[in-house]
């Protein structure tokens, strides 16, 4: 090991060059996002898996890489190890996942060694975007992320996606900066907005808890990408304030998502452990049997829904600020486009709220829909420690985002040196104190002038019918199911966007045609294999004649 300049060279890797590691503000930030998740996932039960540690090593190498080879090596190690882990869970999505990983590698490898140009950017965006689950290359993510054990799902959703975004950030903002164009940012914003819409919509509609969480990851990747795209656009047109705010939004969203999404995934794994299922249609009432899990999931869901005073609010607040700022700049087309983006983000936020309400309301409140859900026991020790750690780290993100933004400043200076970062106009602590004061005042008013004495009334049971005698927990069909809860959203938006079969448009327009092409190629190969000697001769003969004809015409003409 030797130190060259500000990077560390390792004694293995490419012959004659070795591998170089380098730590700057950006790597440090993403390393800090990754660290709590790795600790949480290992505490939650992945400690003994070799593939898991290979996965972690790959991510760390990709983050610390100082040269293209090390970056690709770490990235592909991460892909391969996570493929193994996905395959332990389920074989079918693992194949799709391997295909996406190969595609992303095939895009990234040439991109990393091309000179700074638009082509390099497009390749990086395709490669890293496919790995991050950016629309329209997202349809593998809701299939592959729920497959492995909960700890790995948590790290894939919270960490691996961030590593892909890290590659995108490093190349789009630093390595390819000399050739930057405004349309790069616009393309990223468009892809991000599409991800937000599709991800949030599917998160409301999916019945499986882990799949719904994975769809929500697609949505948050979209939010981060919208922020990055805005920053890239602003940097290219020289708008210092906009690029600062957009970068703040994107990076803070990455930090927050890296805390609450692993928390939710580990919680979903515990739900599966306790009840044997993650289908929301078979859960319900878990808050009674698993109060600690319920409280932690509530915190995570608040982050997922971007509720005020939750960890997800500050980044979304900043992002809306940035989009409103962007809508005030540029020509008439840009204004219309960014206003439409604002509407899309609004729909996304509303759908995310619906998804979080659905997870908590149907999974944790109400009556149990199955005996397993009724008999669930609370968290085991390992996952509880992991979730508590993530939850404890999410509280400062929720309550003092301003301090965190100050810590992000070096990263923003690295990415966009001329960016201005205004202080955050959102003070959760003050808000909390005001809300507390209001609650105290209300309590005081109620105790001072409220109704005195006790009155016995029959408890309102939420409109349920009386449970029949043969069903001790009540008839589960008297309460809305997860599918029923999502029905209004399905009717209003789902039919239009997803079609009647509720399949992802990316699958319909991307995977199905690909599959058809593959079938056709296989048929062709089979036809060639079965050709008779005469047909093969005829083919060679036809090629020869065509060649001669071309030669003769070329000479004669």
């Amino acid at each position, binding site marked *: 090991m030797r130190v060259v300049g500000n990077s560390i060279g390792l004694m293995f890797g490419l012959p004659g060059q070795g591998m170089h590691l380098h730590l700057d503000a950006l790597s440090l930030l993403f390393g800090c996002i990754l660290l709590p998740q790795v600790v949480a996932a290992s505490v939650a039960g992945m400690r003994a898996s070799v593939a898991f540690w290979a996965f972690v090593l790959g991510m760390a190498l990709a983050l610390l890489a100082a040269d293209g080879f090390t970056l690709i090596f770490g990235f592909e190690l991460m892909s391969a190890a996570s493929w193994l882990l996905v395959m332990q869970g389920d074989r079918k999505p693992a194949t799709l996942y391997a295909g996406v990983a190969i595609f992303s590698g095939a895009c990234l490898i040439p991109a990393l060694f091309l000179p700074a140009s638009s082509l390099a950017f497009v390749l990086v965006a395709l490669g890293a975007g496919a790995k991050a689950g950016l629309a329209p290359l997202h349809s593998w993510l809701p299939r592959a992320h729920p497959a492995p054990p909960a700890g790995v799902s948590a790290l894939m959703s919270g960490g691996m996606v961030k590593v892909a975004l890290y590659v995108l950030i490093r190349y789009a903002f630093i390595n390819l900066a000399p050739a930057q164009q405004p349309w790069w940012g616009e393309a990223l914003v468009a892809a991000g907005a599409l991800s937000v819409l599709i991800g949030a919509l599917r998160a409301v509609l999916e019945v499986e808890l882990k799949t719904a969480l994975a769809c929500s990851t697609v949505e948050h990747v979209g939010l981060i990408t919208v922020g990055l795209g805005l920053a890239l656009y602003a940097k290219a047109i020289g708008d210092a304030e906009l690029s600062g705010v957009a970068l703040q939004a994107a990076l803070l969203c990455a930090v927050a998502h890296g805390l609450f999404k692993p928390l939710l995934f580990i919680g979903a794994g515990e739900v599966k452990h306790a009840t044997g299922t993650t289908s929301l249609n078979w859960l319900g009432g878990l808050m009674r049997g698993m109060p600690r899990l319920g409280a932690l999931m509530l915190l995570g869901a608040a982050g997922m829904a971007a509720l005020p005073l939750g960890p997800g609010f500050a980044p979304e607040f900043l992002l809306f600020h940035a989009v409103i700022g962007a809508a005030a700049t540029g020509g008439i087309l840009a204004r219309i486009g960014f206003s439409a983006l604002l509407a899309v983000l609004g729909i996304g936020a509303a759908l995310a709220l619906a998804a979080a309400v659905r997870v908590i309301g149907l999974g944790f409140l109400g009556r149990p829909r199955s005996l397993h859900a009724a008999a669930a026991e609370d968290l085991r020790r390992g996952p509880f420690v992991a979730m508590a750690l993530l939850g404890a780290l999410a509280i400062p993100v929720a309550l003092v985002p301003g301090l965190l933004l100050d810590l992000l400043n070096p990263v923003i200076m690295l990415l966009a040196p001329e960016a201005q970062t205004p202080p955050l106009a959102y003070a959760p602590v003050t808000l909390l104190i005001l809300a507390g004061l209001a609650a105290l005042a209300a309590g005081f008013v109620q105790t001072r002038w409220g109704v005195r004495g006790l009155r016995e009334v029959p408890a309102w049971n939420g409109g349920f019918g009386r449970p029949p005698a043969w069903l001790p927990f009540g008839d589960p069909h008297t309460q809305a199911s997860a599918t029923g809860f999502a029905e209004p959203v399905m009717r209003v938006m789902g039919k239009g966007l997803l079609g009647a079969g509720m399949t992802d448009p990316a699958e319909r327009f991307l995977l199905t045609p690909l599959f058809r092409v593959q079938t056709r190629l296989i048929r062709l190969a089979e036809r060639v294999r079965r050709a008779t000697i005469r047909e093969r001769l005829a083919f060679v003969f036809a090629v020869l004649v065509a060649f*001669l*004809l071309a030669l003769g015409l070329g*000479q004669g003409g």
Partner: protein
Amino acid sequence: MSLTFSLAHLLGGIILLCAFLQLSQRRLAAMITLYQAEALVLSAAAFWQGFAQHEINLYLTGIITFALKAVLLPWGLREIVLRFNMVRAVETALPMAVSMILGLALIGIAVLVVLPTTMSSISLTREDLAIALSVVLLGLLLMIVRRNALAQIIGFLSMENGLVLAAIGMPGMPFVAEFSVALLVLLAFLVVGVFLLRIREHFDTLDLSGLEKIERRGR
């Protein structure tokens, strides 16, 4: 000198005519006869070129061609026909008229390719080369449009005649090459003869269409 050209072209033309007529024949006996005539004219052409170019090697080529292709191979082929009782017409893959039109087109292509490409060389080689290429292409076409294995072999041999024609037209072509080509053909003939016997043993016919059907159904 002009007699050299005229006679060489005449002999080449007769060879081309024989090769073309093979396309139009359904009966194996007629095809063998045409092949024999082709080989005979080819040996005459080799003798004539040897006389014109004062090359002793070409006389040797002529003798080999005569002995092997004009006498030995037709006799062997006739033996096969007799032994397998294949006097009746053989099946074609394409209609006769279509294959003849294709053959005409191929001759056109050969002329189109060779004449402009070799503008710089002497005329004797140019026309002979065009004829030789036509014969090669016609032989290939014959292999494709016939389903019968023996007819395909005749196509192959006719194609080889075209190669020899090209070789004797070239001044300074070493004898070794021709000798090896002739040997190669003999070997191929032996191999294919054995192969035919095997096919016959297994399937009781030399018609390959049944084999093709089996192949198409999957192995």
